[in-house]
């Protein structure tokens, strides 16, 4: 059994260097890299936030869905030589379907059960996913090696890994699509109505069970995109799940559970502070900073930095 957060070791990042006082351009480099990674974190957390905001479900299997997406990208790369950024599109569609089915098959009957019963259901699903991955792929780390992985963009003194820039771009694009979905489509509007007032939505004749399933599908699709983007930045192991679940929770709690803008800003904040802590303190202090931040936010402002005044 492995521990959680420290196993997220990033490839070719400055955070891997020995800690010493960095120069200003180095610091700028670290902050921008952290922000790029943070965008992907934000997308992952957005999925969690949407699921919580609408279904009021605490998705403890979020990180396992993320690792599942990462393995999907690895398999597609090794088997079909597909670039993770191509796999992403198919994975998003597939995960949306899987999410829809999971919601319909298991979670819908738990919507009115106590909070802890829902958490336990998701923990059960997470254990099954994580250990099936372990059965299928073994405990060793897997990765993809793309041609552009070691390349970088040069902006003056600032060097940016190409893979990281692509990952962030994909995350931003997916977020924009998601925002458009919730803002402009009829289904998106209906989902928001469900989130605001489930009873009212039911009275107005909205198919709540179907909309909840669509929401879980949308959340899973966010995770699929985030996972495929992340796989070019990080090696994947089956035990990575809990660390992503916790990371996603840290982000949405910091940003405010249920708030979408909050999830994105929380992702950026955590991405940058992790990267800075990795350089300024020690690499393993990365997760210490995010958990410390989580405790502070929980104690001082449990509704999150962007959440409403309601507790």
């Amino acid at each position, binding site marked *: 059994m492995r521990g959680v957060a420290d196993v997220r070791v990033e490839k070719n990042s400055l955070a891997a260097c020995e800690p010493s006082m960095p120069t200003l351009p180095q610091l700028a480099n670290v902050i921008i890299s952290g922000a790029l990674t943070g965008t992907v974190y934000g997308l992952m957390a957005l999925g969690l936030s949407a699921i919580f905001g609408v279904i009021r479900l605490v998705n403890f299997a979020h990180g396992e869905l993320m690792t599942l997406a990462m393995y999907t990208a690895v398999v597609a790369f090794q088997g079909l030589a597909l670039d993770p950024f191509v796999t992403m599109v198919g994975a998003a569609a597939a995960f949306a379907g899987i999410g829809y089915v999971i919601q319909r098959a298991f979670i819908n009957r738990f919507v009115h059960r106590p909070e802890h019963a829902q958490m336990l259901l998701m923990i*059960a699903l997470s*254990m*099954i996913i994580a*250990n099936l991955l372990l059965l299928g792929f073994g405990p060793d780390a897997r990765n993809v090696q793309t041609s552009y992985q070691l390349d970088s963009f040069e902006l003056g003194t600032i060097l940016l890994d190409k893979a990281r820039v692509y990952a962030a771009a994909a995350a931003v694009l997916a977020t924009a699509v998601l925002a458009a979905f919730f803002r402009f489509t009829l289904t998106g509007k209906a989902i928001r109505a469900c989130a605001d007032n489930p009873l009212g939505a039911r009275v107005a004749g909205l198919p709540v069970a179907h909309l909840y399933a669509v929401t879980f599908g949308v959340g899973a699709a966010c995770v699929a995109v985030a996972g495929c983007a992340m796989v070019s930045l990080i090696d994947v192991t089956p035990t990575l799940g*809990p660390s992503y679940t916790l990371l996603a929770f840290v982000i949405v709690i910091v940003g405010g559970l249920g708030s979408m803008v909050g999830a994105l800003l929380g992702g950026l904040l955590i991405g940058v502070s992790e990267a800075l802590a990795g350089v300024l303190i020690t690499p393993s202090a990365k*997760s210490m900073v995010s958990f410390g931040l989580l*405790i502070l936010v929980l104690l001082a402002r449990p509704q999150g930095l962007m959440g409403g005044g309601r507790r």
Partner: protein
Amino acid sequence: MTPDRRRWAGIVAAGIVLIALPFVAGNYLLSVATLILYLAYVGQAWNVMMGFAGQLSLGHSLYVGLGAYAAAGLFVHYGLGPWAGVWLAIVLCAAVGAIIGFLAFRLRISGVHLSLLTIAFAELVRIAFDHIDGLGGPGGLFLRVAARDRIDLRAFRGPPAMYYYTMLGLAAGALALCAWLLRRRAGYYWRAIREDEVAAQAVGIDTFWWKMRAVVLSAVMTSIAGVFYAFYYNSLFPEQIFSFTRSIEIILGPVVGGLGTLFGPIIGAAALVVLGDGTTEVLAKAGLDIPGVKQVVYGVVLLLVTIFLPNGIWPPLARRLGFEPRKL
């Protein structure tokens, strides 16, 4: 027979079987039984907080780890056996439990936020222990393994049966303590808070202090399991002992057996270990040695129980066996 008589007959019969077990069972079976009792004990301890008082902790590995490192540190550095170490473990975990409880309950943190707070504390302490060089850091802390044939009670070294009886005593003690507490004011107050905290407060229960008592008692009980863990397994790694997966392992027994019930943690731990190790063993016999099978079994059992037996295995089983009066 009345349900009450039947219950006592059941307890006496189970007690005789459990006491006689080391005389008939081999070392493997004894190690499985010890694991069941260990999980039953920590499950019982966690159940005080969640099952009785309704406060969901998902970070109980924190107290196992702190208890284990406290006792192991004293043993490795000062040669003090667990009889001294257990007191340090108890004081340390009572203090940590009180701090977390105080912060959480003063600021009215509950539900999922409380669960996340407990996880965050466990994770922070895990990372901190990675940096304590005196306790081995990430490389682990190891206790000297002595001859297994002699019983050395001072340093708590001996054959498997010694560990088995220790764990049996702890599990029986925890069961008796919980049974006693449930009949006292504490049990009624805790369950009142679990069912409806506002109502409990309205009838004059000091919910803050009763929740604090539940957390501290649960932490103290769990810390003793940590001391046992250190001297039974002889190696401690922060990555393992403080991990989130361990916290989940602790809650599985009581959840599967029946939250808030006295015998749930025991039945749940037994069912999970028997099914998990049984499957692993059967596959090993067939020449398939696959890591992860046990956890898949745990996950499937948990999934089925949460869907089909929301109150756990024990309540319906107890009615079927005639230990509880049938529902009208």
